[in-house]
Structures are given as C-alpha cells and as structure tokens.
C-alpha cells in the first residue's frame, strides 16, 4: 500500500441494502425486560455479569441460537489485547440489536448496540481483551436472538524485560 499523502481510505462495510426493518415492538417477553431496542436505559445489570450466559439473560432474557447468517470479522491473533478490531455484518432481516461479548474478560459484555429501523445491520468497533478468548456476537432479529463465536488469540508482546 503506497504511502503517498495518506488519505484515510473509506471502507463501505455494507453487505447490500438492509431489509426493511419491522420494529417488533409488540413482542411480549414474559415479564422479562422489554426488547432492548424499546428502552434507552443503560443495561446496568447486563454489564455486571461474569459469564456470557448470565449477560445474555440479563440483556435479552432469552437463549441465542447459532446462525450462519452472521459474519463476525475478528483477527486470529490480536496484535494487542488493548485494541482488537472486531466487526460484524449480517443478512438476517429486522435486526434491532447487536452485542459483543468476550468470555474471558472480567466483565463479559463489552458493547450492546441498538439499531432503529433503517440502520444497516453491521457494526465495527475496537475492543479490549484480557487474554485469549472466545468472542461472541449476538444479533437480535425479528424478536429472535442469534449468535456466532470466534476464538481470538491474545498474548503480551516483546521478550520480557
């Protein structure tokens, strides 16, 4: 990549136009917190959980099933645990929420995004990872919850000192 005057390259991350999202506001979730997208309160509880199962329960109140319609892009070996570029795109319709979890972090939930209608179901961000761990992305689409996972290796660098 030639280093002429560095223009910051634009990268469009879209995987084709997102489907028209129907906001499933009406779905009843058995006394559990309403759809995350409905309220804008900070999910305090979810950000306290130490295991991904508890975080998922606190955040979405339902189990997640694996889906191959989610593309989680994360490095195999993180250059550094402090800045791990992780992004996700999905072809699932009616996506209302996307969240990232790192199983081995002291607090498992790293980020939870709420996508109103018309927002493309894709997010890129830079996360911290305490050590080698499974990285999980959760996608709430049409009221159902889906997930995919990827192992990311993290170690310290340099030769000691």
């Amino acid at each position, binding site marked *: 990549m030639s280093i002429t005057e*560095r223009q910051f390259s634009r990268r469009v991350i879209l995987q084709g136009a997102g489907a028209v999202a129907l906001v499933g506001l009406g779905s009843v979730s058995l006394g559990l917190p309403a759809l995350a997208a409905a309220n804008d309160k900070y999910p305090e509880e979810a950000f306290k959980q130490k295991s991904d199962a508890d975080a998922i329960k606190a955040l979405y109140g339902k189990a997640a099933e694996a889906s191959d319609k989610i593309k989680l892009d994360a490095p195999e*070996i993180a250059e550094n645990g402090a800045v791990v*570029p992780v992004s996700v795109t999905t072809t699932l319709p009616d996506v209302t929420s996307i969240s990232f979890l790192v199983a081995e972090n002291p607090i498992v939930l790293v980020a939870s995004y709420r996508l109103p209608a018309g927002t493309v179901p894709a997010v890129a961000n830079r996360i911290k990872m305490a050590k080698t761990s499974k990285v999980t992305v959760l996608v709430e689409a049409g009221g159902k919850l889906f997930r995919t996972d990827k192992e990311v290796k993290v170690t310290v660098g340099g030769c*000691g000192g």
Partner: protein
Amino acid sequence: MMKLGSAIRLGFCALALAALAFALPAIAADKVDPVADAKAFKKFFYDKFPKLKPEDFVNGPYSMDEGLHKQWVEKEQFPPYEFAVEAGKEMFTKPFKNGKTYEDCFPNKGIGIRQNYPYFDEKEGKVITLELALNRCREANGEAPYSYVKDEMASLTAYMAYTSRGKPMDIKIPDDPRALAAYEQGKEYFYSRRGQLNFSCATCHVQSPGERVRTEVLAPALGIVNAMPIYRSEWSGMGTTSRRFVTCNSQVRGVPFNPQDDEYRNVEYYLSYVANGLPISGPGARP
C-alpha cells in the same frame, strides 16, 4: 549456601532465537563509508523480502504479516493518533509567553521538514533530533521543556511528521569527521549486544524481522524510524523514538539511558541515514 548458577539466566527469548545461525561475509570495512553502508543495508532487506516494495518497509510489522496488516488497515481508517496530530497542530501555532511560536524556530515554519531530522550540528559537533530541537526552541523562548518521550512532545512531532508524509527521508552527513564519528557510534550501538538477554538491535531487527516474540512480529530495521512518533496499542498512547529505544533496552534487561543521550541520538542518526529515500509515514500506529 549459594547455589552455583550461571548469572546469565537466558530468557526464553534467547532460547527461541538461539537456534538462528547467521553467516555474514566478514569483509573488513574499516574505513567508514556511509554511502556503501546504506546501499548494503537496503540490499540486505530487499533480498530478504523480495515481495516487498521499498516503501513497504516503513510500515514495520504490518508489512511482515497479513493478519497484522489487516488490523492495521482497520485502525488507519480512523487512526488513534488523530488526536495527537490535531493537538500538535494547535500547539504549533499557539504563541509562547513572549509571543513567538515554534514556526519561528524551524525552517519553512516547521512544515514538511521532519525528513531532515536528525541532522548533524557542526557548531555543536553533535546530532540534533527533532525532539531536542523542539525543546531547545521552547527553552530559547523562556518555556519549560516537555518530556522527550510522550504527551506534548509526541503531539508536536506527530504533527510535524504528518506534514512530511510521503517525503523521502533525507539525512545528511556533512564532511566533518565528528559527523562520521557520530554515525559510526550509532552503527556500533545498533549492532552491539546489551542487557542480560544479550541481544543487540540487530539480533531482532536484522536477524529475525517478520518472526514473532510472543505476540509481537519484529519489524525490519530498514525504515524502522520512518513512522515515528507512534501510537502503540501496547502503550495505549503516543511515544517518540526515544521512548521506543528506552523500552527496547529494558526488554533485553539493559539499563536505558536518558531519552536524548548521545547513544540514542547517534543510533537514530544511523537508522535514519540508511533509510534515506524511503518515505516518511509518521505518525504511525503500531501494536
């Protein structure tokens, strides 16, 4: 009872690298010939990495490993050093108490000149780095000097490097025996082993670029200072060339010097000179 133990407890790095044999044609080149050195230096790395273009060498580890390259490209979309460049730009034109600014201390108002640093000052008979020139400018205008390794100094050098992006490194060795001596001392420092791990800069950056020391991929020595100052994820912040020298020394268990001691100034002079012609790519993002 003291157990008989070898004092050199070789860190596991030494074991990982000990297997490396590196035969070098030992032509006794006693006359100091920087031009020949630079040619040989570049040839060594071009032969070692034939697939790379010369300018790729300024991207250090990112030109050595596809996985790292991908993470770098992502970071470069909106690089973490963005704030340092903006802070540096703002500071650069903010007048000192006496009304002067850095623009008054540097040729071309400090814009697009980073590629000429470090330079040899024939009055002083020593190598002057960009960081040193900046602090001298501050002191000449009655301001307190900044730390040489990070924060304001990193922001100022980040901005100055940014204004030189793409310009080829252009270091001069004047016809002055002291300049040649400084260059040679820099070279000697670069190749001398130090610290309990008994590594020299060359052990990692000449013998094993592209290889891993735990998670880190080693950068080739060619063009290794072209991206300075750098935002390292490791530091979660900016660092200047001397910050990198200090941390490298500590990693091999050698006691580091002060950031602008002669050894560091001279080795930066050597490393910059042999990279003449390669583009400035600072400020850089690094693991």
